[in-house]
């Protein structure tokens, strides 16, 4: 059977896609935690990070197709990731300042936040299209993505290898997630975020500057989405409309894991990636049904656990 033959490959692809989803989903879930807002513009935060990373790569490596090697490969990649993270964080920060803070001061209802987010999203991606053209941008390669190791169960066209890029995606995503988990659970900022997520007013009575915590939450979400965006750019493609679909998927992942819960978002992202991958292996012409399957899984999970897998009533992390 196709599925059993390709199990490891499917699992690996699922984890790779899932860790990208997870990186984006964390931004949704953290903002949801502190503002109870579905930040639809987060997909544009992700997109801007990808753009930032690509511009950095273009500035460093140029578009002539020469692939750097050795230390400069490492250096360029790292700088691109950092550039993406910084750009995304800046966009997320300004988004909060310009769009959401006035609403928060007026205690606007959540639906107004939602429409504001949608407006911001439409505005931002079209602005990006106006600024940088409406075609896919060229992503210069910053390193040679050679085979690293071979997956068990090789297909008829040769062994399935895991490449450097795949390792980079999964490793970066996991490192970022672990660091984030430590930040959330071990630092003062983390406890501030958790406190605001649970009860903003009481957090204020403890001396937490809610405005500052919300700003920083957006920044953290932006940092992760930016790194995700650059990795996604290397793996997939970059254009001004690139945010929409991953955004929807990551949002789904966040809900799957229990929105508001950071570990839930990580779990939900990985799970969604694996579900998407496995459904391609199990269903004939499965790629056509990927979205249907993942949403059906979501509905089933929500019917069993109405607040997602790590819904707020059980999880400890914010």
């Amino acid at each position, binding site marked *: 059977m196709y599925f059993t033959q390709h199990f490891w490959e499917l699992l690996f692809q699922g984890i790779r896609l899932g860790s990208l989803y997870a990186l984006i989903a964390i931004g949704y879930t953290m903002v949801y935690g502190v503002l109870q807002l579905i930040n639809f513009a987060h997909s544009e935060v992700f997109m801007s990070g990808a753009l930032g990373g690509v511009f950095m790569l273009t500035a460093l490596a140029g578009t002539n197709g020469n692939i750097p090697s050795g230390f400069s490969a490492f250096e360029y990649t790292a700088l691109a990731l950092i550039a993406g993270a910084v750009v995304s964080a800046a966009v997320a920060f300004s988004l909060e300042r310009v769009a959401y803070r006035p609403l928060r001061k007026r205690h606007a209802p959540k639906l107004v936040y939602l429409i504001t987010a949608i407006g911001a999203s439409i505005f931002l991606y079209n602005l990006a299209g106006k600024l940088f053209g409406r075609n896919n941008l060229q992503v210069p390669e910053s390193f040679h993505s050679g085979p690293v190791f071979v997956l068990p169960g090789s297909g008829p066209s040769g062994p399935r290898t895991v490449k450097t890029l795949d390792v980079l995606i999964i490793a970066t995503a996991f490192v970022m997630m672990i660091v984030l988990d430590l930040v959330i659970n071990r630092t003062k900022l983390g406890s501030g975020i958790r406190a605001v997520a*649970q009860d903003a007013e009481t957090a*204020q009575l403890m001396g937490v500057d809610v405005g500052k915590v919300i700003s920083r939450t957006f920044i953290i979400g932006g940092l992760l989405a930016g790194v995700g965006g650059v990795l996604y750019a290397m793996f997939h493609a970059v254009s001004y409309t690139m945010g929409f679909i991953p955004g929807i998927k990551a949002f789904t992942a966040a809900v799957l894991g229990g929105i508001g819960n950071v570990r839930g978002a990580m779990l939900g992202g990985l799970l969604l990636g694996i579900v998407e991958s496995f459904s391609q292996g199990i269903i004939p012409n499965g790629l056509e049904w990927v979205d249907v399957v993942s949403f059906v899984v979501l509905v089933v999970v929500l019917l069993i656990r109405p607040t997602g897998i790590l819904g707020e009533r059980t999880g400890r992390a914010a």
Partner: protein
Amino acid sequence: MSDQASTIPAPRTEASPSDNAALLELSSVEVAYGGIVALKGIDLEVRQGEIVALLGANGAGKTTTLRTVSGLLKPRSGEVRYAGEALTGIPAHKIVQLGIGHSPEGRRIFSRMTVLENLQMGAYRFKSVSQKDLDQVFELFPRLQERRTQLGGNLSGGEQQMLAIGRAMMGQPALLLLDEPSMGLAPLIVAQIFEIIERINALGTTILLVEQNAAQALKLAHRGYVLETGEVVMSAPAGELLNDPRIREAYLGETAE
């Protein structure tokens, strides 16, 4: 401010603390929600070392008063003065840094944090959590030490109330605002909590106490204010209020022994 502010010994002399200097003063404070005026010009004073009880029926404006002091609400007119200085324009999270601790109505425990984490949140205004304070809270509430790793949401009502007070104490408050600490608790636990409040006061913390349980509160307090629909209708030393026939009728009818 420094973490361990210089302290002076508690002025617990035979003389009543009501003779001390005023720590908190509200002068003709008016607060409105939208069109609804909740406080219609309140004058109130809490002197250093005192326990002051704020009494009144539901909706009289007791909680609003506390929320105005801690900066959650902004007065429409009037002034809140703390240690003689106006608090106008200082946001709630900075007011905490001045040593005003607030244990809010309904306890508002962080239910998805452990007891210990809740207490650590109480010390959020300091760079690090002082072990001394932690020990002191655990000494006041030994039950919390037993439950230190449990989630706040899993505690009983009484334990949650203890946690709420303990959490406020972690911020080393000079003035502690307590909102309905006895609400919904069994009489035995209420007695226990009031005893602890007295101990906290004895340690030198000034307390502004909002209570529906007027009898208990007045036994504990030095002075009391009675609020009715956003106005102070009576203010007197606690003993006088306890013996006032109008008070006995209106607030102690059920609870007076």
